[in-house]
């Protein structure tokens, strides 16, 4: 197990180096010059001003030199400073990560609480109205875009209830109740969507497992349905579901831009989008590296969890 983890860690470093090269190169290939964009607001882009700004921002150095400077700071966890705002990126990211993390965790927990029971019911009551209802729920959740659900929710709540959750982030230390209410709605919208995919996976893998010989044996032995499902079948169905949930959680941690925008939550997603719009290279690079690190870590956690669900899996 330890060797496995060490191997994965070394692979992670290689992965992250590859990601750093890619993000550094790709963002500079995208059309749109950050310095010109900054100067462009005045409608007046004098070459001498552009040159001075490039020098001040270190963008006049060669690409390799810029990369070297950036990576050498990155290994010491110095994420640099925003070109646009001059604020330290690390501080900004540390403020935003908890918001995105909270949203991601809440939505994932809700997804699990919905997906697993619904998937189990759907599989065990296959081709009944319960199954159809569950599948309809899943199709609806997959089809309806989350921004549409969010917009409709806000519209109808404001019209019919004359109330919407407070927009604009409220810290838990300011008002815990309002904070939880504020997160409940976006988490619910995201959770419902996430649960749709997981529920379908749960249903299909459980159906497969329920057709296995050992389950038939369990029935023949006279075990109760509850014991068969929860003690034998469910655990063996969880691996694909956990894989999907892990991927979804990773993606959530990268930030759900649309939901953050609609509900005014200043998460990592919005930060990344703003940076891309303005070509704020250091922020984009830092956020992408953060997301890459999160993905690598989540994949490792998911892989290690397989051993819990299936003791036959060995990490050597």
């Amino acid at each position, binding site marked *: 197990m330890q060797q496995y983890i060490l191997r994965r860690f070394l692979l992670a470093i290689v992965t992250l180096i590859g990601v750093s090269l890619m993000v550094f190169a790709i963002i500079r290939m995208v*059309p*749109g*010059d*950050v310095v*010109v*964009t*900054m*100067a*462009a*607001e*005045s*409608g*007046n*882009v*004098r070459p001498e*001003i552009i040159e001075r*700004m490039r020098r001040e921002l270190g963008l006049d150095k060669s690409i390799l030199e810029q990369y070297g400077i950036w990576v050498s700071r990155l290994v010491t966890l110095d994420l640099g400073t925003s070109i*646009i*705002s*001059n*604020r330290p990126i690390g501080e*900004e990211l540390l*403020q*935003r990560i908890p918001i995105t993390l909270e949203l991601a965790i809440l939505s994932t927990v809700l997804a699990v609480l919905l997906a697993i029971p619904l998937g189990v019911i759907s599989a065990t009551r296959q081709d009944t109205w319960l199954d159809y209802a569950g599948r309809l729920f899943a199709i609806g959740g997959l089809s309806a875009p989350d921004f549409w659900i969010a*917009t409709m929710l*806000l*519209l109808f*709540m*404001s*019209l019919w209830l*004359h*109330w*919407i959750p*407070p*927009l*604009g*982030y409220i810290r838990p230390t300011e008002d815990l109740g309002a904070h939880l209410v504020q997160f409940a709605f976006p988490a619910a919208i995201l959770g419902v969507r996430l649960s749709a995919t997981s529920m379908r996976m749960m249903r299909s893998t459980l159906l497969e497992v329920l057709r296995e010989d050992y389950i038939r044996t369990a029935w023949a032995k006279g075990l109760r349905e509850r014991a068969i499902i929860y003690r034998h079948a469910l655990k063996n169905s969880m691996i694909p579901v956990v894989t999907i949930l892990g991927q979804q959680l990773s993606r959530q941690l990268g930030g759900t831009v649309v939901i953050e*925008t*609609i*509900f*005014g939550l*200043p998460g990592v997603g*919005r*930060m990344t989008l*703003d940076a891309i*719009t*303005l*070509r704020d290279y250091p922020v984009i690079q830092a956020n992408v590296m953060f997301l890459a690190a999160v993905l690598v870590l989540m994949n490792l956690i998911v892989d290690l969890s397989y051993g819990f669900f299936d003791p036959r899996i060995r990490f050597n």
Partner: protein
Amino acid sequence: MRKHRVLVFLVAVVAVVGLACSSPQPAASPQAGGGGAAIDPLAPSTAIATNVPGGAKKLWDASNGDFKAFLNGLSRSPHCDPSVDPKRGGVFIVMGTNNPPHFDPGYTLAGGAYSFIMPAHNKLVRPATGCETNDYIKFQVKPDLAESWEMSSDAKTWTFKLRKGVKWHNLPPVNGREFEASDVKFTIEYYQKGTEQRGTFLQVERIEVPDKYTVVMHLSRANPLFLEDLASPAVMLAREVAEKEGDFKKTIIGTGPFMLKSFRSSEGGEFVRHPDYFAKDDKGRQLPYLDGHKIILVNDQAATIAAFRTGQIHNVPAPVDAIPDLLRSNPDIIMQATPGIQVSTNSWAMNHWSSGSPFADVRVRRAISMAIDRKTICEALFKGVCMYATAFPWPYIYDRGLTLEELGPWYEFNPKEAKRLMAEAGYTNGFKTDFNFYQYAITGRQVHEAASQMVKDNIGVEMVFNPKDYSVYHTEYVTRKFPGMTVAWIQGSTTSFDEWFYEAQHSKGTKNLFVVNDPQVDRLADELRMQTDIKKMQEIARKEVDRLKDIMFQIGLVEIGIQFQIYQPTVRQCHGRAIGTSGCVGYGGTGLQQVWLDK
């Protein structure tokens, strides 16, 4: 062509139904017979005041669903009753859509940044706002940090006497010291080194500070309108901030009515009143009336409207189509209007300087303009209440916006003549061209799409839409590297006469984004800078505009004819101006000092 006929037919049906249901228009409006923009800039067309709670709903009911009559009837000013004492207290909450990149006015003119900069700062002079004026079109200068001023006879030397006892915010590193003349010198010199205000202040050759409260500015040219330049977003800055941090990107410290208490990127910020603020109202009462101001950053229109509906914010920039629903759900809202100024992003620039460009031929430019049926677009998209954009701010030189007829022959919808011009220019079958597009607003997209379809149908010029993101669009536009045509603007937040009529139009101008290169325009712009008499300047500027309308380096389309503001029924004395502000927030944040909440 078939699609265009269907569009025109549908719009004609809508227009006929609308006209049949409309109430009679007042006969006195000078634009009533013109091209659809039937708005008297200064007076609403009915006696129903919409600047009081419930007034807008009454007007809507009286208008029987006729948008044109409704928009024309909106009050043009806030409700001002000198017999009512303003109430103190409360926090004025608004939603901002744009995350400020930073707070340095020397390096940004972004509206999002100025939402935070303006409430905390003062300028030497400022525009009249709120209940200080009934005329929200003409620029009226009021003393701010300067209490008086003198212009020399040649309009090249300006002497300002500053108020005594004005305090900076009591925040480190400035720590509440007194504002003085050296701060003015520092600020102007800082702007001259930056990117955004440099063009405005390069005219200042030398600044003298003979004593703590006197500033003398020597200009390189005569400028009787220098006060307008100073009333632009040129807020006064504290040198200690720059000494400590190198710039003003992170810290907001001013002399203004509100102090920034907290700010978080993409979240918003909160202000508290400045306890040592210098200004008082005309009855000697301390300003501001409010305890604070809050900006929540949410970049979603539906969420913003929902927040307004449920009372979370005090004003909302809603589109025209949202008004009926808002009036149904919130019948007590206050609505006010200021006339639109015909300056918008609803215009086109053409790359006429590249070798072989068809746009180098003035006949092609005129033909494109004449192929557009602006009246139809006006009716279809703006309910008949619109301005025809020419990219010049009419309040500087006219009493009202110009009708389509008054804009000249090239604004007339005349596809036959347009085809003839194209044939003369050698493009009988039209041509294909790239069109760089950035969506500033949904209605903007609709205008561009409708107009480009008409141009294709009528003269065969096919504009291939290339949607670009903010960075690419701005870069290509400002560096003049767009391939064919582009959505166009001239820097719009400033109030400077010189910027519009010289810098943007002279072949050597620093903001000549349309690459105007015309000897007549150059001569007129040079003449403008030699004038010391404002009336003569206006005369020359009108001639310049006439010439620009003739050579058509820029094709103006259609824009909504008024800017309207919607407030909660408790809001008092918040109002925008035709140029430079919308409401008392954003660039109009100066006006926040007079706002109060009636609750």
